[in-house]
């Protein structure tokens, strides 16, 4: 009985994030039906499914971005490191620092490239110039865009191409050292070459981060993810190893979707 060290090890949550019977409502419309799912640390999970299936809504529940929608309502439980992120005592600002997000459309601020990446540090109270400088460089390198922008950090970010803007947004998200990175169709507005760069990036990032990515592109899901979850009309139909989902799906709906029979 007296083995606290071992016990502590067991206490360490196996999952970085989890959701338990998560329901989500837009007004009277129930967009998510009792979604339960776990995310292991340093894994890439892909959420797939046809438009309107609730995968983006689910993603945005994980950093409480849906709070911004006035008529929305959440029931059930979402945890980060075992802590309920919808608990009244939880600081949503801290949550969002730990659970970063990259959006569908590249959305750099109308500021310089440097300011875009430094923004997250500044708002979190980091003023040390040398530190910020260093972290900006590190983040831009991590996002594989440093070489393209290192000579024009003081230029406006809006002058970059779409693919560059998206990698800048990834750098911006990484600068605050999140633990989980949510990506909402990060490559859907990009051309194939830019998409490939983003996918390579995801491969590298998963060594450090837990990544959850929504994608419409099934090849992309197959290429980048360890785990794939299939959503349909607000329900989580099936979740499993990506290999299994794409070769031996258990549910007929999953099979129909991944073989292109609908959606």
């Amino acid at each position: 009985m007296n083995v606290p060290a071992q016990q502590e090890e067991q206490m360490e949550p196996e999952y970085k994030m989890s959701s338990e019977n998560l329901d989500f409502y837009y007004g009277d419309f129930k967009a998510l039906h009792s979604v339960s799912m776990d995310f292991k640390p340093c894994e890439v999970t892909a959420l797939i499914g046809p438009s309107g299936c609730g995968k983006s809504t689910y993603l945005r529940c994980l950093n409480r971005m849906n709070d911004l929608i006035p008529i929305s309502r959440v029931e059930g439980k979402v945890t980060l490191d075992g802590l309920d992120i919808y608990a009244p005592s939880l600081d949503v600002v801290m949550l969002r620092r730990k659970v970063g997000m990259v959006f569908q459309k590249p959305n750099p601020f109308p500021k310089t490239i440097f300011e875009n990446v430094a923004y997250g540090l500044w708002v979190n109270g980091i003023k040390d110039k040398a530190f910020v400088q260093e972290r900006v460089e590190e983040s831009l390198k991590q996002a594989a865009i440093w070489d393209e922008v290192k000579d024009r950090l003081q230029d406006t970010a809006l002058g970059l191409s779409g693919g560059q803007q998206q990698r800048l947004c990834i750098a911006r998200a990484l600068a605050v050292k999140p633990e989980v990175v949510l990506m909402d169709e990060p490559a859907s507005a990009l051309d194939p070459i830019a998409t490939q760069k983003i996918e390579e990036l995801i491969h590298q990032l998963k060594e450090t981060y837990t990544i959850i990515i929504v994608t419409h592109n099934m090849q992309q899901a197959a290429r980048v993810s360890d785990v794939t979850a299939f959503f349909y009309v607000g329900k989580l139909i099936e979740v499993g190893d990506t290999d299994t989902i794409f070769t031996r799906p258990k549910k007929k709906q999953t099979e129909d979707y991944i073989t292109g029979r609908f959606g």
Partner: protein
Amino acid sequence: MSKNDRIFFEGSAAYDRGRKLKQAVFFNLFRAAAAINGMALLTIIYFMVANGWRAISWEFLTQPPMESMTKGGILPCIVGTVCLSFGAIVAALPIGIASAIYINEYARPGKVVRLIRLGINNLAGVPSVVFGLFGLGFFVVILDMGVSIAAGALTLGAMSLPVIIGSTEEALKSVPDTYREASLGLGATKWQTIWRVVLPSALPGILTGAILGISRAAGETAPIMFTGAVFFTPKLPTSIFNEVMALPYHIYVLATAGTEIEKTRHLQYGTAIVLIALVLGMNMLAIFWRARLRKRLK
């Protein structure tokens, strides 16, 4: 070509002529409407300049009125109107912007917001003379400011509030939500998001709206005739509690209440030219400023 196709195409020739004619008629109507607008402005300016250009001179712009206002210039009126407008901006801009931020960024849509909006919309519909009387009752008498720049500017400010709030709200709405999401997603608070991302993006729109609102108010007579402007004072103001002369009120006085209305006719037009130039100048400034800010954001 089958028989049905033929019917379809033969039928459509007449129909096509008809709809093209209709389009031409409507577009020309719209064109005429737009032209009437432009003509109105040109006519007013032409009328003013033709009748008043003789009055415009260096002395006119730099001297106080003399000899029962039949000679001399309108310097005190120019200074007075500039002071009143500037004061109105200082008073109304912070309150207007803050209200718009509250309504658009903080408040949850519901009864309270609807009530506030209703209030603002009604404020916009209140006649300017009522604002004048309100200013007289509240600022001049109750707050004991007397007839002064302060009371006049606050009254003008109150009158421009709905315009400022409206244009600020429009400007805030035009800031894409993706900026807000990106900022919040990085662990910024709502206020940091507003201060560092939303407001800088909305600034061009806010400033133009504010200046357009104030320049509209600057030309008003009714709100200041009981609160800030006087019939005649040759002194330039030295404090915000001084009374002043003002361009719109001066025109009104010369045209209706002067001792020798006919003799001052060209001065009335001259004053009107200066007032219009001032208002147009402020509008130009607003447009120029907006263009510069927009360029910097790009």
